């Protein structure tokens, strides 16, 4: 089953659209797709052209393509458990919330909370991702738990906050406090990062660029070879009785 959703231009393009029903599962079950536009609930067709071609007998046979301006469309792929979603442009907040299977590919950039609390499946974002990429929710103790997120561009602040499982690969830089409160999983940052792994207790993080303003409570363990490159190996966060592993190519302290 191929589903093509083309968002039309709106009079007020700033009003967010909440579209948690845009998942392969909902189309497979032939549900009426309702979305929230501000405080009104409307059928998806009121805002987008919808074309469904072919049948699907299992979730793996459902492919969704999103076109048009989807930069304010939130919660696409929430609780997704299979199939694919491809987004031609940018996508709004909370794309792939809680997903457990399937694949989301974003050809543009993603807003905040990409892959929030995800448990499985894959997300590939070709542009940048906003704050809280692959993170958790307010007050939560565990963020991303499984699956994989790859961002070709850079990410905002608090990426991978509370991450407790899964793999994240960021090709660009991160903002402040990437991997804060990290509890598990593996995060690889090919660019620079700042104040990385604050208060971590477990898990592994690699910074191929420079770790700026390192948290001053990590224990130096020596130099190790990883991927053919030399990294400084730290363990911590000692302030948190943490036993996480942080490998950085270069680092600075705010002294």
């Amino acid at each position, binding site marked *: 089953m191929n589903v093509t959703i083309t968002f039309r231009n709106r009079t007020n393009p*700033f009003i967010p659209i909440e579209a948690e029903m845009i998942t392969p599962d909902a189309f497979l079950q032939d549900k009426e797709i309702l979305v929230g536009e*501000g*405080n009104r609930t409307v059928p998806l067709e009121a805002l987008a052209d919808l074309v469904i071609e072919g049948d699907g007998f299992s979730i793996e046979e459902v492919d969704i393509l999103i076109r048009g301006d989807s930069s304010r469309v939130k919660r696409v792929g929430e609780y997704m458990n299979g199939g694919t979603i491809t987004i031609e442009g940018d996508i709004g907040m909370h794309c792939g919330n809680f997903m457990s299977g399937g694949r989301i590919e974003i050809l543009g950039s993603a807003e905040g909370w990409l892959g929030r609390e995800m448990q499985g499946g894959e997300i590939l974002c070709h542009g940048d991702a906003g704050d809280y990429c692959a993170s958790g929710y307010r007050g939560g103790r565990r963020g991303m738990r499984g699956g994989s997120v790859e961002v070709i561009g850079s990410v905002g602040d608090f990426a991978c906050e509370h991450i407790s499982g899964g793999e994240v690969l960021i090709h660009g830089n991160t903002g402040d406090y990437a991997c804060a409160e990290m509890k598990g999983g593996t995060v690889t940052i090919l660019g620079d990062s700042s104040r990385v792994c604050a208060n971590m207790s477990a898990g592994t993080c690699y910074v191929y660029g420079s770790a700026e303003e390192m948290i001053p409570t990590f224990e130096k363990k020596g130099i190790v070879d990883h991927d053919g490159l030399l990294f400084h190996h730290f363990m911590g966060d000692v302030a948190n009785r943490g036993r996480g592993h942080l490998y950085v190519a270069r680092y600075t302290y705010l002294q």
Partner: protein
Amino acid sequence: MEIRDVPCPFCGCLCDDISVRLDDNRILGVENCCTLGNAKFLSKGRLQHPIMRKNGKWVEVSYEEAIDETARILSDAVRPLLYGWSGTVGEAQVVGVHLGEEIGALIDSTTSVCHNPSILAIQEVGHPGCTLGQVKNRADLVIYWGCNPIEAHPRHMSRYTTYADGYFIDNTVTDRKVIVVDIRRSEGAKVADEFIQIKPGGDYLVLSALRAMVRGRDDVVPDSVAGVKKEQLQRVASLMQKAKFGAVFFGLGITMSRGKYKNVRNAIELVSELNRKTKFTISAMRGHFNVYGFNEVLTWMAGYPFAVDFSRGIAFYNPGETTVIDLLERKEPDACLVIASDPGAHFPKSTIEHMAAIPTVQIDPCVNATTALCQVQIPVAITGIEAAGTAYRMDGVPIRMKKIIETNFPTDQEILERIVTRIREMKRDG
């Protein structure tokens, strides 16, 4: 006539020992108040009638017309925002939350731009707090971190800490130590026994270093952290552990600087670590006299303390997404009601430009910077002077605000109730 024990409706200290001298329904003088509170009790000049912009000009209108227009603006909106709330009482805030639910609005308070990060941190790791009375009577070490009580909460030190007699403190001057942590030598720093000057944005790093030291892991800490020498940090860590009862007070210096809620979380975790060895508490220096109260009211009614989005018929909370600055920056709201605060005076330019571009209504006794952004302003009684109700002090203690002056102005609560009634009538009539 003198009325005693009047709570001051200005800052979160909510000093309830103010004496007000009155004659013929006018305030002649105020005693025990600081300059900030004094200015509020003795303020002159207010808006006498509701006003509306018509053909680009302000015109005086009746309360009925102003309420009608407000109800129409809010009913037509797809993403209405109700903002402010911290300068009014719980009774009015309750009606505000009902209004938010009725119209599927976003509702947020000034918490959003002050101690929002403190609440996020508390939601992550809890709050080892206490009342100000406990601090006054027991604390032998007081730490002001990223705040300047002398200018922002002028009676905090004299009522609760440095200059206040304590039941279990023999001599408050010699037995109570004060540490001030700031990026500049503030007025408060001048009365401190120890002043720690941190490089801007370095609070988190210093807090981590102190946590490690309290755990006995000085070995991992570099020689200097964010401009603070390791020796000073060791001295302070030792002072903290030797205290019988330590009290940390923190302000916007750590909540609104780099790190935000992570700074507060780190401070709370330092206090938790200290509580393995002695008694320590931590409290936020809240600003508006009832900013804490709105957090209480919204939590009772919607489950969250600020930044609630009712647009889907349920309460959704996610600071960064549902907080006023982020919403205005993204130009989401298409109508706005401001009450009991003055965002026009301190919000970023891009956000107030959006407020000016959409229909904005203000409920406030006085003309202020927000008036310039509005289409409608409805004047009301001054809460805590002309209207009674419940407010919450910065430590969560509820205090009854008094009405000491008679007035013909309606209260915040009355105006909000009339708006809700009018919206319901409009819905019923289609």
